[in-house]
């Protein structure tokens, strides 16, 4: 038996947060004269292949870590020079005047990014930097994911790198571990130390990249309204990129009342809008993908950011800010701060919990948590008052369609002057964080499902059939690839599924897992008289929507083995 593999620092997940950590750690260690070993685990076959984001991002942290990022060839798709916030009716679009929406939604000067490329670039920077720093050994492992966290005496000491570890060969140990994953494994750490007061709430982002006939580079739109006119929280985004490429996507909260809210279908409906049709007709779909976003914000942050032997970063921590539509810079800041804290701890040889405590303190004092605090009620404002999106937004969208968006707003006011005004004032106060209503507690997303919910029907405008893709077709553009014998989604109790299916069938619907899946994974198998839940796992693109929306909490999506999964390069 060979000795166990042990590193000073292990980074779980090849994410922007962890790669920033690795790079900054190398900078810190360069002149220290001390020897360190670092391992980076990435479940995808290459860095970036399981990373997906919008994305339009503030480059301030990037600038801090790589001041010469432009010379180093950081892959920028465009610099935003035309930022819009719009409301969509079924047929028309209304770009709101700049003074009508919060300044945080003005993205002028920000970078439009393809995050998978950025992640691959960061990985290369780390590798290049490591050559200059011979005292630090950086081992970058692709195709290996952390399947299980190993705790020893209440401390995180390592992870298992195989689903069913057979021997010591299948474990990696580290003196300190950083979790920068999307929640596949860090949730075990959060559960083990009972760090959550409030369950995390999620939204799903679906995105397509198109090759268009003309360039929209630098143009950015964020939209409200069509096709989410049934009260679901969410919106669309369209970003123009270089080489005539266009990003079209939607972010949709999973606390929708509609049990059959299909995000991929919503994106197709979004694309049927004449404004988007005018851009993509004659174009070509290049890529499709989906991913979850932690939406809870401030009150969903874990009680502690550091646990004995480990830190939580980025999406594992949940620092994404829905109001500002910002996550990447926050994740990178986590990595930047974590590098300094971990470096200090390793230099001093003090690996206790107190040595890692500055991590939380420094993040709390930084823009990451400060801005999350300002925006702490943003999501709640729409959750506590369903009229905002359910009643008022459709009227305004109707106004947009009739050519008088402001009239739509006035209509809302006239219908019930006192209530509408009251709702508006309270919502604004909450959104801006000016009114304090104390800590809030979210319900898990699936509890919002109303099985009998009937979404309103709208007449769709005419559209070009060649621009619309069915869900199985979309999977083709996510380029999924799986090894034989892959079983990465657990279904705990088949009987529960049978009952759930029967329940929804009575209502003339299908189950949330089948409907909401972004990639044609879940299905209903008819075996004799029995209707059972089945899965086509080879289609899965790792978004984890099914796990969040399952009304019976009967599913769990695990990290895959052998680098299997989608290929998000280009998203």
């Amino acid at each position: 038996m060979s000795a166990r593999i042990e590193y000073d620092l292990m980074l779980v997940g090849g994410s922007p947060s962890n790669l920033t950590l690795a790079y900054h750690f190398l900078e810190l260690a360069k002149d220290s004269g001390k020897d360190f070993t670092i391992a980076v685990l990435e479940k995808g076959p290459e860095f970036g292949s399981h990373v997906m984001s919008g994305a339009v991002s503030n480059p301030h942290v990037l600038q801090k870590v790589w001041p010469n990022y432009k010379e180093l060839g950081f892959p920028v798709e465009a610099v935003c020079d035309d930022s819009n916030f719009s409301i969509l009716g079924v047929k028309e679009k209304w770009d709101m005047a700049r003074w009508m929406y919060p300044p945080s939604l003005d993205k002028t000067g920000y970078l439009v990014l393809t995050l998978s490329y950025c992640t691959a670039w960061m990985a290369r920077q780390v590798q290049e930097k490591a050559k200059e720093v011979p005292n630090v050994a950086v081992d970058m492992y692709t195709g290996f994911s952390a399947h299980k966290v190993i705790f020893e005496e209440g401390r995180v000491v390592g992870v298992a790198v195989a689903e069913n570890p057979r021997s010591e060969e299948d474990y990696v140990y580290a003196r300190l571990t950083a979790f920068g994953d999307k929640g596949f494994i860090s949730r075990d750490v959060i559960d083990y130390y009972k760090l959550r007061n409030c369950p995390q709430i999620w939204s799903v982002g679906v995105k397509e990249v198109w090759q268009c006939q003309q360039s929209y580079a630098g143009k950015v739109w964020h939209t409200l309204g069509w096709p989410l006119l049934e009260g679901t929280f969410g919106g669309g985004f369209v970003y123009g990129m270089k080489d005539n490429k266009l990003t079209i996507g939607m972010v949709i909260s999973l606390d929708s009342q509609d049990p059959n809210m299909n995000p991929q279908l919503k994106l197709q409906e979004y694309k049927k809008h004449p404004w988007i049709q005018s851009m993509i007709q004659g174009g070509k779909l290049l890529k499709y993908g989906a991913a979850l976003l932690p939406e809870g914000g401030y009150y969903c942050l874990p009680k502690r950011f550091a646990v004995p032997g480990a830190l939580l970063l980025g999406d594992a921590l949940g620092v994404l800010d829905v109001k500002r539509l910002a996550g990447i810079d926050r994740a990178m800041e986590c990595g930047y701060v974590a590098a300094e804290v971990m470096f200090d701890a390793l230099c001093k040889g003090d690996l206790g919990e107190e040595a890692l405590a500055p991590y939380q303190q420094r993040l709390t004092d930084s823009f990451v948590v400060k801005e999350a605090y300002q925006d702490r009620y943003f999501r709640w404002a729409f959750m506590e008052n369903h009229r905002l999106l359910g009643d008022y937004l459709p009227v305004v969208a109707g106004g947009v369609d009739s050519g008088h968006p402001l009239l739509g707003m006035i209509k809302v006011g006239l219908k019930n002057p006192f209530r509408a005004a009251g709702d508006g004032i309270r919502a604004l106060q909450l959104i801006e964080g000016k009114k304090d209503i104390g800590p809030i507690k979210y319900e898990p997303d699936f509890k919002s499902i109303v099985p009998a919910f009937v979404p309103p029907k709208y007449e769709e405008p005419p559209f070009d059939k060649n621009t619309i893709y069915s869900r199985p077709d979309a999977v083709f553009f996510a380029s999924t690839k799986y090894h034989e014998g892959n079983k990465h989604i657990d279904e705990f109790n088949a009987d529960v599924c049978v009952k759930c299916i029967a329940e929804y069938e009575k209502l003339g619907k299908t189950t949330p897992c089948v409907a909401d899946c972004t990639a044609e994974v879940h299905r209903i198998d008819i075996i004799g008289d029995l209707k059972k839940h089945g899965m086509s796992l080879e289609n899965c693109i790792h978004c984890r929507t099914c796990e969040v929306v399952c009304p019976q909490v009967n599913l769990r999506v695990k990290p895959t083995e052998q680098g299997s999964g989608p290929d998000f390069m280009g998203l």
Partner: protein
Amino acid sequence: MADPFDIFVLVKQVPDQGSKAGLNPDGTIDRAKAKRMLNPFDRYALQAALHTKKTYGGRVTAISMGPPPAVEVLMEALEHGVDRGVLLSDRRLAASDTLATAYALCKTVQWVGRFDIIFCGLQTTDGDTAQVGPQLAERLGLPQITYCQDFKIDDHRVHAERIIEGGYQKLDSELPVLVTVANSYHPLEYKSFRGAWRVQQLLRNEVEQKKYIQTVDLDVIGADPDRCGLKGSPTIVAATEKVGEIGGNCTMHEGHTASVLVEELLGCSNLKEFVKA
């Protein structure tokens, strides 16, 4: 058992099937642009080699021929548990056809030294000829077992099953022998973390790396440059044609009874033309 086996396995780097490979103006594949991968057929050969090592003892040498980036497939082989790699890399080998390739590989194998068994993949996904393995056996004067789907080694003899139409042949051969492994053999086991770890250590240490992976050229192995590359290749690519891109337009019809399904299928696209009443 006498000496431990010396097992050779031939591997090749090919353009990634998932990415789009471009063509050079002369019709050959543009290898510089395409993403690269280990030839999928070679995975079975690698599994056969590693299985032999595990079951009967011995050491495995992976041999490859290609431009310098081909060292990546040897690294991958090391991750899976191969003991050492040899890369034949020389500009004069460019545009070799199967005749020239088999000659160069024959010289490489002879240069590397003694062997008991050579495993090859059935064919590659870029050339798809399935000729190099058999040609190499001829040049080395070895018996060959092609389309092998299973084998046992017993008393210095190989007992193999060879796929033929409608069944399989049972073959028996003495060592040394060349075996091309069919893809009905066991798929390659995933690399172990320990293997990946070892290669990471090698990547950082060039001195150590040279001990495990040797790169040789035509002069080292003593091959005649006139019999290699374009000069040594009688094959001429007359023309290549692009057949357009594939892309799905698929719809799913499921969860219905058979009769509904038939109706639904008939209703869509132009299937009706093909159905006779």
